[in-house]
C-alpha cells in the first residue's frame, strides 16, 4: 500500500511552529501511536487545534509534557491540569472556542469557506472583539475558518487506497480535520482491500489521506493498551 508508513518514517514531515490538527474527543478517536511518536520527534513549538489536550496521561498530554506545545485552540482544557498551570504561568497560549464553533471552523477550512456566522456565544465573554451581525432578526458572531499544516487523525479502517471509515463516537472531529490540512496522516486499526468498504459508507474519501500508519494500541476492556 503506497500510503502506508512506519510511524518513525514520518518525523521529517514535522517542522517547528507548525499548526497541527489533532482528532479525538477525550481519548476516543485519538491517534495515540502518532502522538507518542510526535512527543519524541525533534520538531516542536506547535500550535495545536484539538478539542482538548489529551486525557489521562495519553495522547496530546504526552506531547505537551515533552514541551512541544506553545499554543492550543480548542473547547475544553479544564481537564488538562498541567496545561492550566502552564497557561497561568504564561507558558501556554490558549484560544477557547465553543465546541460547535470549533467543529464548524475546521469544516469550513476544509471546504474552502472563508468564515461563517454562528449564533453560539453571542453576548458572552467569548464574543469579545468579534464581529456581531444581525441576519433576519438573529444576532450572529463571525468566525474565521481554521486550517492546519498537518492533521493527525484516527480511523477504524482504511482500504489500500486510503478511504476511511470510523467507529462509533470515535468519529468526532476526525473526518473534518481530514479535509482541513495540507498533509493528513491517519492512524488505523485495520487495513482492508480496495472494494471491501461500501462506497455509500466511506466517510473520508482517499484523496484526503496522505499517509496511513497502523495503530500500536488496542482496546482491552476499559483501556487502550499497546500491543505491538
Amino acid at each position: 500500500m503506497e500510503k502506508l508508513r512506519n510511524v518513525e518514517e514520518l518525523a521529517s514531515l514535522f517542522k517547528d511552529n507548525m499548526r497541527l490538527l489533532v482528532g479525538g474527543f477525550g481519548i476516543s478517536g485519538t491517534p495515540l501511536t502518532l502522538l507518542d511518536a510526535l512527543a519524541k520527534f525533534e520538531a516542536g513549538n506547535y500550535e495545536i487545534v484539538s478539542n482538548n489536550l489529551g486525557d489521562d496521561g495519553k495522547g496530546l498530554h504526552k506531547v505537551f509534557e515533552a514541551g512541544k506545545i506553545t499554543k492550543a485552540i480548542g473547547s475544553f482544557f479544564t481537564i488538562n491540569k498541567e496545561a492550566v498551570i502552564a497557561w497561568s504561568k504564561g507558558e501556554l497560549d490558549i484560544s477557547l472556542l465553543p465546541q460547535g464553533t470549533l467543529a464548524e471552523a475546521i469544516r469550513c477550512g476544509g471546504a474552502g469557506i472563508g468564515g461563517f456566522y454562528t449564533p453560539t456565544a453571542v453576548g458572552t465573554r467569548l464574543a469579545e472583539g468579534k464581529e456581531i451581525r444581525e441576519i433576519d432578526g438573529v444576532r450572529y458572531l463571525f468566525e474565521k475558518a481554521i486550517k492546519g499544516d498537518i492533521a493527525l487523525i484516527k480511523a477504524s479502517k482504511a482500504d489500500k487506497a486510503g478511504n476511511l471509515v470510523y467507529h462509533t463516537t470515535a468519529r468526532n472531529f476526525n473526518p473534518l480535520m481530514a479535509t482541513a490540512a495540507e498533509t493528513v496522516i491517519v492512524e488505523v486499526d485495520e487495513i482492508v482491500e480496495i472494494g471491501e468498504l461500501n462506497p455509500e459508507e466511506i466517510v473520508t474519501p482517499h484523496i484526503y489521506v496522505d499517509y496511513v500508519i497502523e495503530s500500536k494500541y488496542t482496546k482491552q476492556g476499559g483501556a487502550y493498551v499497546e500491543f505491538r
Partner: protein
Amino acid sequence: MNLDSREIIAKRIAQELKDGDVVNLGIGIPTLVSKYIGDKKVYLQTENGLLGMGPPPNEDEVDIDLIDAGKATVTIMPGASFFDSAFSFGMIRGNHIDVAVLGTLEVDRYGEIANWSVPNQPILGVGGAMDLVAGAKKVIVASTLFTKDGSPKLVESLTLDSSGERRVEQFVTEYASFTFQESDIFIDDIYGDLSFEELKERIGLPLKQK
C-alpha cells in the same frame, strides 16, 4: 449538596419530557435524568456524535470508543446513528434538539444563565454548553437553588460569565420549578419544604405563582 436534592431535581425534569422528544443531557445532575425517563420514548443525543444513546454498558459490553459528552462509556439503542462533530453541532444549533437539560451556576430573572466558567478559575473550558444554550428548542437548567453559603442561584443579574443571550425556559431546583416570561419569574410547581413565601424571602426577587 446531598444526593437526594440531585435526584429530586432529575426526577422532576424527567416529568417534563414527552414521548418523541430529542434530548441532550449535560454533565452532572442532567445525566441523572435518564434514570427517571421510564417508559417514555425519548431519544438521547450526545454532542460528540451519537443520537440514540442507551444506558451504561455492562462490564463485558464496554467499548471505550463509545462515550457520551462526559466521557462515560455508553451503549446504543436500536435506530441509533453516529455522525461527526460538525453534523452533531448542526443538529444542536439548527434547532433540531427538543430539550437540552443543562447544569447551571446562576440564572438571572430573565432566564439568562451562567453555566460554563468556574468561579475563581481560569476560563479554559466551554465544551458544547454555549451551542446547546443557543440552539435547543427548549432549555431546562438544573441546579440546587442555593450555593453552599446559602445565597440563591436565581439572581437579579448574573455575577458569573453568561452562556449566551438566549433565555432558558425552565429552572428546576430541589424546592421548586421556575419559568420565565419577559421580566417575570413564575413558580410553577413547589415540591420541597419551603413555601412560596419562604422561597420569595430567601430568593429576594419578585416571584409570581402560576
